[in-house]
């Protein structure tokens, strides 16, 4: 203990540590505004709060201070080599015991830097920003995000230094591991700054908190492995690497520790419980001989445990198949499967993402699956593109999380869907279709719903919502948003814009597809960016309803913006409205008319086109042209891409990279190329003529499939007509 105190005193006298602590505080202070400094457009002008300030400063601090403390650690450990003082020191004390004490002293200063940094940022938030402090965000962000990254950096570089005995190699290797962390999409590898871009103001850090903690546990094991490996190879008695190892390996405790830490790291990595390769592994081959015509989910959410359980019954028309496959979510464990009332044995595929259920070769097949557990999210989407999660205060389950096991069969013209979601009574559930009843009992509330659809895409969204309801013509719009964001919704006249969009679409496309089902728009956390539309439910991420008060000055009393005032704020606001308009357009193109996808043709192109038309109509050409140039740039970028132009070279790149390129290409075609083609069609037919034709197509194909060929035929256009150079 006295040696430890002495090292602390000694380091303090060297002044570098004072500089490092001061630098850390400055970096964390700069980080307060790091969200606006990033190139993440979605997060610009996000309203500042304890969550954004503490997370921004902690994450920015972690990214830079972990390198600074890593460098300080390796310089400290290498000091006696550089100063030729090792001989003297080693004659007084076991040198490696001293190294350990020095590492502990560095960790002590990392704690001090974290603590002082946190206090400084709290003081700034309180005095300069005058925003109330929520200490839980600070504790989480500073002690789960920031401090461990400093600790890991020190342990990793110490282990590497012991292993290589070289300042340069150990620091460069730390740099490589650091860059890997910054660029990885796999949350398990992001030890420096975590995979999260922002902590949700709407639902807090709970949906992603456990993944961050798991990442930290994994890296504690990895760091111990690297450090103990370093100890196993530490140079002693003037020996080289091999002979040092042969000397050190005699310590059974150390060997056991290395083995335990390496096995522990491997086990924690492989047995990671929160994610799966959801998108990549999902099978997509459809059995054309089977139709789904009924779906009955009865789901109970246990938010405290982040679990769900329930029974889902499927009705099929079978025209000659002996097997029905389902894409599943690995986190959900099956209790039993019944086929026409009889429990049967089923098979899981090797990667556990699909099950095969044997069925009798008869026309009507009823399958009931009882299952439950914790939903797994996509491995590469944690924090940014999570298709599903259940947390204490929210439920967000998109169909592509396979939370309702997805049968790989054809979908009938109409699927009768009815069922219920049971959730804690403090949550408001946004159900698809029509809510037919709500029952409250013993702290839970059962939300019963029913509807007919041409897809089995079914989502569940729940949260502590404020519900706003308004009507437009013969339809009802239910708008669910966080009470925390009410001021923004009112000040920026978001409801007015929703109404305006409704008006524009009904006037230019046709009536909303249903008089029975209200349009439901729900705010969701930023852990899934952008928006989503399935059936009559639209979700929009919270950034669109939670921007800074500075934005209020942008619009006049009618919700209009000054067309000449093209600024970053305008661009952000227009993008937000454009995204809402895009998702709402899917109610016409996607839910109303089933647009049969065949790249570049899909409902996305039409939704993009109509959101553009709305923006043009509402804010003028100058504003809408910004969006058009973005599309053109994206298409141009892709066309100039080497692997896209030289498709034969695509076979030579690794599969993961090839898939991501192909995905990027398809997205570019669907979202950017197709709307440009539609604008070309508009140029040929004239704006009025083009919109009139589209209106006719909508009426004719409402509740029907619309292929690209049918669309072109109806519009009197050819592929060549709308070809883009």
């Amino acid at each position, binding site marked *: 203990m*006295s*040696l430890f105190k*002495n090292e602390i005193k*000694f380091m303090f*006298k*060297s002044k570098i540590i004072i500089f490092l602590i001061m630098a850390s505080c400055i970096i964390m202070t700069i980080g307060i505004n790091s969200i606006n400094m990033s190139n993440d457009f979605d997060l610009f002008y996000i309203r500042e709060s304890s969550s954004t300030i503490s997370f921004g400063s902690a994450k920015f601090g972690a990214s830079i201070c972990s390198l600074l403390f890593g460098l300080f650690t390796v310089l400290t450990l290498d*000091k006696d080599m550089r*100063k*030729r*003082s090792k*001989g*003297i*020191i*080693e*004659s*007084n*004390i*076991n040198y490696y015991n*001293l190294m350990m004490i020095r590492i502990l002293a560095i960790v002590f200063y990392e704690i001090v830097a974290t603590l002082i940094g946190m206090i400084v940022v709290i003081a700034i938030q309180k005095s300069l920003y005058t925003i109330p402090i929520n200490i839980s965000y600070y504790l989480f962000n500073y002690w789960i995000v920031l401090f461990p990254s400093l600790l890991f950096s020190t342990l990793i570089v110490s282990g590497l230094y012991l292993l290589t005995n070289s300042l340069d190699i150990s620091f460069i290797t730390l740099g490589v591991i650091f860059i890997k962390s910054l660029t990885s999409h796999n949350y398990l590898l992001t030890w420096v700054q975590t995979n999260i871009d922002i902590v949700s103001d709407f639902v807090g850090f709970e949906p992603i908190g456990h993944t961050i903690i798991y990442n930290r546990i994994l890296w504690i094991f990895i760091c111990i492995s690297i450090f103990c490996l370093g100890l196993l190879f530490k140079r002693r*008695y*003037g020996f080289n690497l091999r002979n040092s190892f042969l*000397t050190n390996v005699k310590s059974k405790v150390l060997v056991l520790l290395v083995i335990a830490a390496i096995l522990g790291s491997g086990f924690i990595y492989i047995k990671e419980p929160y994610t799966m390769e959801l998108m990549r592994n999902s099978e997509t081959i459809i059995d054309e001989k089977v139709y789904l015509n009924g779906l009955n989910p009865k789901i109970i959410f246990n938010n405290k445990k982040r679990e769900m359980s329930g029974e889902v019954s499927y009705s099929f028309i079978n025209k000659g198949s002996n097997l029905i496959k389902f894409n599943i979510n690995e986190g959900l464990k099956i209790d039993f499967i019944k086929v026409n009332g009889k429990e049967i044995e089923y098979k899981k595929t090797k990667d556990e993402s699909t099950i095969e259920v044997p069925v009798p070769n008869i026309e009507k097949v009823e399958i009931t699956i009882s299952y439950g557990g914790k939903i797994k999210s996509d491995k590469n989407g944690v924090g940014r593109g999570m298709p599903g999660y259940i947390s204490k205060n929210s439920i967000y389950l998109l169909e592509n999380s396979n939370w309702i096991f997805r049968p790989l069969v054809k979908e009938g013209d109409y699927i009768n869907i009815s069922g219920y979601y049971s959730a804690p009574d403090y949550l408001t559930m946004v159900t698809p279709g029509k809510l037919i009843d709500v029952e409250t009992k013993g702290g839970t509330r059962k939300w019963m719903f029913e509807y007919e659809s041409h897809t089995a895409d079914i989502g569940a969204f729940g949260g502590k919502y404020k519900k706003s309801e308004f009507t437009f013509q013969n339809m009802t719009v239910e708008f669910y948003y966080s009470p925390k964001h009410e001021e923004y919704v009112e000040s920026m006249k978001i409801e007015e814009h929703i109404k305006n969009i409704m008006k524009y679409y009904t006037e230019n496309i046709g009536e909303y597809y249903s008089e029975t089902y209200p349009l439901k728009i729900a705010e969701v956390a930023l852990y899934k960016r952008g928006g989503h539309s399935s059936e009559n439910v639209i979700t929009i991420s919270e950034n669109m309803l939670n921007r800074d008060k500075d934005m209020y000055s942008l619009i006049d009393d009618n919700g209009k913006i000054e067309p000449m005032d093209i600024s970053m704020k305008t661009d952000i606001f227009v993008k937000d409205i454009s995204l809402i308009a895009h998702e709402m357009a899917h109610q016409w193109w996607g839910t109303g008319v089933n647009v049969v996808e065949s790249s570049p043709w899909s409902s996305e192109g039409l939704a993009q086109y109509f959101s553009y038309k709305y923006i043009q109509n509402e804010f003028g050409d100058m504003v809408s042209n910004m969006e058009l140039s973005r599309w053109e740039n994206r298409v141009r970028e892709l066309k100039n891409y080497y692997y896209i132009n030289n498709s034969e070279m695509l076979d030579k790149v690794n599969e993961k990279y090839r898939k991501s390129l192909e995905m990027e290409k398809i997205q570019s075609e669907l979202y950017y190329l197709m709307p440009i083609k539609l604008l070309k069609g508009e140029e040929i037919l004239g704006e009025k003529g083009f919109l009139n034709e589209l209106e006719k197509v909508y009426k004719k194909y409402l509740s029907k499939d619309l292929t690209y060929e049918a669309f072109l035929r109806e519009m009197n256009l050819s592929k060549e007509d709308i070809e883009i150079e």
Partner: protein
Amino acid sequence: MEIRIQNLSKKYKDIKALNNINLTINTPAMIGLIGPNGAGKSTLMKILVGQLIPTEGDVLIDGISLSKREKYLKERLGYLPQDFGLYEELRVEEYLDYMASLKGIKRNRKEVIKRVLITTNLEEKSRIKIKTLSGGQKQRVGIAQAILNSPELLIVDEPTVGLDPEERIKFRNLFSEDSIDKIVILSTHIIEDVESICNLIIVINKGKVLFIGEPSELVKKAIDHVGVIEVTGNNKEKFLERELKGEFKITSTVITPTGTRYRVVSRNLSSSFEKVVPSLEDAYIYCMLEGGEDKYVFV
């Protein structure tokens, strides 16, 4: 304290730095370890301070193997290597304070530091940063840290390098006085240092101990092997050729009005030389000449 070196060998790949050394040293002892560069002196000292381990043999400290007594040894050791560095950004007293804590000195630390500052004549420099000190002053700081814990075993490698003559004398005396109740091992090239203070000499070359004994014994061995001769100008070249052939080793050359006067050491001193009383330096050279034949002449 008793240090017993048993059959000690140290190999670096194919080179034997130490070859089967056997020694026993007991407190008190003031030992001069001498030998040419690369003789194995530093290797021996590093083994004694636990920084290297022998390839063969063992070192017993008070009857127990050094490998099991590392802590015991370090608590009783003071060591100053030949090539060393200090924490130059610190002040002298801060550095000594840090070293005192590493040595586990908890009580009266300030007094202990003050004592060594006086001993090493660094009192006035105690508040000065080490980086501003001269080479000799840094050497004194090195010695100061070695004696902080009043070690039972003090091992110093070339401690008087860089010191002025007055300081050298002071340190020689310091080591000598210290050796009353401890073992001091002084490795040096300066025979004068050894001659004036050591009661035991160890001559080492090519990893082998050539001599262990009192300085007077080493001098005694060289009697009849040291001579002087005056060579006139014409014979000078022929005389120097004889040295190249290994007949003798010239230890001093003095130009005189009549020619050049040479002092030589030879295994078989010819009658042409005038025999003189050998100095310790002559004796050391004689020892080297004998050791060069790869045989234990004196041990």
